[in-house]
């Protein structure tokens, strides 16, 4: 089976500082993979390269077998690669419904229309309503985004991602900033997503990681130091060192 997302020897340097170091892994349909690592391990930098916000210094990124290393963000999105952000990024001047509907309309090629509002066209409306319903925020449809609680904003962020009908969804700390007792709602929302989507989640909340992931990648000093099941990760000395000791120790231990 062709991998939906494949990173081949990806590296990124800023001057003399190597922030991504020869990272390779693959994601296939239905994968639920968590990428963990201590602060400064280079997780977000890696995600930025995957999404196209940052060009890698070396290596290749394949999306559905197609090399997208030099492709624009828009081309990657068209290829089914969608991401969310560590700090929620929403269209704050719009309502909840408009945020999701825009993503739906963009995917359907409707946002070039200049003289007809299609947000309430039956097929478009049905789609954004069902996405909001899936994530349990349908009752907020008419609400301006600025009036949402932070946890609701995170759910809306996920809803926008889902509206793009991703094949690969990269979630950058989807529960960041959400009160601990509300993070199960985020997990529940992710659990409702299509089983065909390959999901890569970057997360610090280990409870969330172990409940979500079938496979865990551990990053330290920009390099992958371990890959395994949640149970294997819990037992691995290199991972424990990465979180509790120095990065250099962790890489030696791996």
């Amino acid at each position: 089976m062709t991998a939906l997302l494949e990173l081949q020897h990806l590296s990124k340097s800023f001057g003399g500082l190597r922030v991504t170091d020869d990272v390779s892994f693959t994601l296939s349909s239905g994968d639920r993979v968590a990428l963990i690592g201590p602060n400064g391990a280079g997780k977000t930098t890696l995600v930025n390269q995957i999404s196209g916000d940052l060009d890698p210094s070396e290596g290749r990124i394949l999306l559905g077998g197609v090399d997208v290393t030099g492709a624009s963000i828009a081309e990657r999105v068209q290829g089914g690669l969608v991401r969310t952000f560590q700090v929620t990024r929403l269209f704050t001047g719009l309502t909840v419904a408009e945020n999701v509907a825009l993503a739906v309309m963009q995917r359907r090629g409707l946002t070039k229309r200049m003289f007809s509002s299609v947000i309430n066209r039956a097929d478009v409306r049905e789609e954004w309503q069902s996405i909001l319903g899936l994530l349990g925020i349908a009752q907020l449809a008419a609400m301006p985004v600025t009036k949402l609680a932070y946890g609701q904003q995170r759910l809306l962020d996920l809803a926008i991602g889902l509206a793009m009908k991703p094949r690969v969804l990269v979630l950058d700390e989807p529960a960041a900033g959400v009160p601990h007792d509300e993070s199960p709602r985020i997990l529940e929302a992710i659990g409702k997503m299509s089983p065909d989507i390959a999901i890569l989640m970057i997360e610090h909340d280990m409870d969330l990681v172990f409940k979500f992931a079938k496979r865990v990648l551990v990053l330290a000093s920009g390099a992958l130091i371990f890959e395994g099941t949640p149970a294997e990760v819990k037992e691995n000395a290199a991972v424990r060192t990465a979180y509790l000791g120095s990065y250099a120790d962790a890489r030696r231990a791996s």
Partner: protein
Amino acid sequence: MTASVSIEAVPPRATSGLRNDALAAVAIAALGAIGYFVYPDDLAFLIRVIGLAFLVISLDLVTGYCGVATLGHAALFGVAAYAAGNACLAGITDPILMILVGIVAGACTGLVSGLLVTRFRGLPQLVLSIAFGQLIAALANKLSSITGGSDGLAGISPTPIFGVFNFDMFGRNGYIFSVAVLLVTMVVLLRFARSPFALMCRAIKDDTLRARMIGVAVFPRLVVMYCIAGAVAGIGGALTAINTGVIGLDSVGFERSAEALIMLILGGAGKLWGALIGAILFELFAHYVSAASPFHWMIMVGVLLIVVVLFFPKGLVNEVGRRVGDLRRARAAK
């Protein structure tokens, strides 16, 4: 079931409809009628306000909808005015055709300006817009063979509207013509403002990176919006040329750009009605205050602006809209 009830309550701006268009047309016709009967001897002033309103509405499309910072927007207005004026002098004297010339000239200037300005954000963008405006102003001064230089381009004498209605010395027909053009333009633009294209522009203004991450090619979209804004400014420029018969360097000057921005802030950016109301209120205020105090009126304009920005930072129309929205929500909550 609660969810479905709330979903039905998506704000009216997300719905299209002939009802909104009809209401807008009635509102503008009513405003026009009020102006006609309240200022029967000062229609030239109202015609000037309408011309400027097009410039402010145009500015709103790029600043209010797309978040583009510009202080060179009068270039679009002025180039269109000169183009329409020159077209008239060259034999294209029909006012409708002159407006079409203005639209094309404004859109072309918008294209060039947009290609330059929308590549950047923030201060570089602002500086580029000023540089573009100053470049056009300098060219207008130097190319006196087509602009009349500091003397202005004079002798613009359009033929009667539809070959029937003369531009009389009291400005009655010119005023009615201008209100009609404003009405048609506003109805079209209000429909445009509800479109997915305009909604996406507002999204780009809110968060460009997020917009890119849902697959939007931001730069081409902003350039297209700049062209549309240029066309709108072009209508205003052409109307000014048609009604006044002369175009001066002030029509492309920095002051005109700054004035338009002030009007937009006063009325409220991001709402076409805000741009229109801002232009009307500013000009009315300046009209009365300058008559009452010819030497100090700019001080009062400054004070007005400070008051508006302090107490209504999003502009008068946005503030009214916010309060009405709060009231509706409070009533719905009860």
